[in-house]
């Protein structure tokens, strides 16, 4: 990863989710794309305002579930038919109805772990350092009661002065320049 220095972005702070969503919508309409909202609880409208509509967590979960089911059913079949066949009261080696229960459990296990860890991986977590934590007002409010919009410096439309003026139009509590 390249060493990053300089400005990460401009961080505007709002009091209510409505103000944040309006500002984010305006920013998207103005052509900004590399930006993110930060809220103390999920605000669906904020994600939509910045153009984030779909995620792949469900797909990863589905693939995990299929893998878990196949893995367990395959293992049961292999163990019972070839690996260690046990003749108990003349029951068939390949007793598929009896194999369903563990296969079902592993479907859920793999799907659940894929959903949880897939979500973390797609979110890029764990990341214990993030430039936004350098902004003191972010740490005081982002996980409590304040709503933030950050326009990132990597956005082609980003300009330290113009973007700041643009954010100021939406009457934020403050606009802070965040360093790496």
């Amino acid at each position, binding site marked *: 990863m390249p060493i990053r220095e300089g400005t990460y972005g401009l961080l505007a702070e709002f009091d209510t989710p409505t103000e944040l969503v309006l500002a984010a919508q305006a920013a998207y309409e103005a052509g900004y794309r590399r930006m993110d909202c930060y809220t103390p609880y999920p605000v669906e409208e904020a994600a939509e305002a910045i153009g984030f509509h779909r995620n792949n967590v469900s797909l990863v979960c589905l693939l995990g579930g299929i893998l878990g089911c196949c893995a*367990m059913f395959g293992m049961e079949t292999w163990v019972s038919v070839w690996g260690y066949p*046990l003749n108990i009261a003349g029951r068939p080696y390949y*007793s598929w109805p009896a194999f369903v*229960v563990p296969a079902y459990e592993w479907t*859920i296990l793999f799907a*659940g772990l894929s*959903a949880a860890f897939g979500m973390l991986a797609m979110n890029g977590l764990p990341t214990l350092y993030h430039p936004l934590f350098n902004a003191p007002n972010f740490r005081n409010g982002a996980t409590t009661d304040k709503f933030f919009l950050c326009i990132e410096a990597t956005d082609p439309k980003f300009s330290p002065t113009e973007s700041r003026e643009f954010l100021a139009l939406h009457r934020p509590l403050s606009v802070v320049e965040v360093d790496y």
Partner: protein
Amino acid sequence: MATKDVKVNDPMLDPITGEVRVLAPGHTFKSVTEKISRIVLTPHTPIGWFLGFLLASGVATLVVIAVTWLFLKGVGIWGITQPVAWGFAIINFVWWIGIGHAGTLISAILLLFKQTWRNSINRFAEAMTIFAVVCAGLFPLIHVGRPWLAYWLFPYPNSMNVWPQFRSPLLWDVFAVSTYATISVVFWYIGLVPDFGTMRDRSKTRFGQYVYGLLSLGWRGSSRHWMRYETASLLLAGLATPLVLSVHSVISFDFAVAVLPGWHTTIFPPYFVAGAVYSGFAMVITLAVPIRAFYHLEDMITLRHLDNMAKVMLTTGLIVAYGYSMEVFMAWYSASHWEAFMMWNRMFGPMGWSYWCLIACNIAIPQLMWLRSVRISPARMFLLSFVVNTGMWFERFVIVVTSLYRDFLPSSWGTYKATRWDYATFIGTMGLFTTLFLLFVRFLPMIPMSEIRMMLPQAKVKPESEAVHEAGD
């Protein structure tokens, strides 16, 4: 605690519907966060907590002593013998795992049904699930006779080339319970991550910032993150729902696939699941009532929660009652005289007292919950939850013991009497459960802050026209 009747003009009453509110009015994002995080971040641990911890951990040492003695002497120190080879260990295993089920039900099924009242109680109900599964998991491990070989139950490539028997319900249990434990822990932890972020930002001590910082994985509340997080939570809830139903069904298969009178019943899976939810909600109430009084959380865990939980208990209790009556009906209708004798023996045999305790605790007394005055009284619900948990323990006792001790042949009849080691292990696990729970209450936010924030009226994004109008004012 005195019983409080709800008065007219009570701020806890919704003026339109007249129902008790789920959350007290007047809360802000900040007040909610402060109230919940202060319980954990305060440098002064309440003396009551210390007393509780001392008592609980003292009781928990019983399980350590009992298990140590068991490992030295073997399962002969217990009351199990022929024909009752399954005693307290299985009774307690099924009882504890059943208690866990309400946690998953609250966090998963009620989430899918968008029941926002669950938000105040889901975190500690989930914690309860995990600790109950810990206590439950102990019993199968220690009852196998040679517990140091219990890992043979897992399919792993070993030098002996021996593999487990996948057609056995006891092995299904291994997968059901281990999956249940894993998914419960993951669901719980994922739910905690945003709150760990809050704790990290609010912690005053360096140590707290490090620990909560590590646990929060760098959570910063990005909208993209939240959306994936919400999807993952819903998926986990969707997966946990069939899981919770399957776990207790699989446990009921342990019994139902046997040909023993009293166990060989197709009603078992649904009736076991309903019983699990019944006892689980009872345990949530047992925990919620003292906690809300001790930490003054009456504005978040309101009488509405008690009322709703009581209704769930009433419903599941009636399903359980249906199960009992079906057992009696089938014993008669099947015309199997072993079944009929088993039922008669259950009711009027030497252990008949346990059956009538079960009927009294699980069916008769809980009918009091039809009364609203009982449902919204913390003290009465606390007592009732004790009664139900006792009743559910008796249910497992009745199923295990009264089916086994008199089966087909009178020459093989026997009896069952638990020893003091049985009691020590059982009571010890209660201490273990309480100790773990007290640690949870002290070090982790017991009410999910981000979910409570979502319930506040100011959390909603207003339509643009309204927002512009307000700004103009």
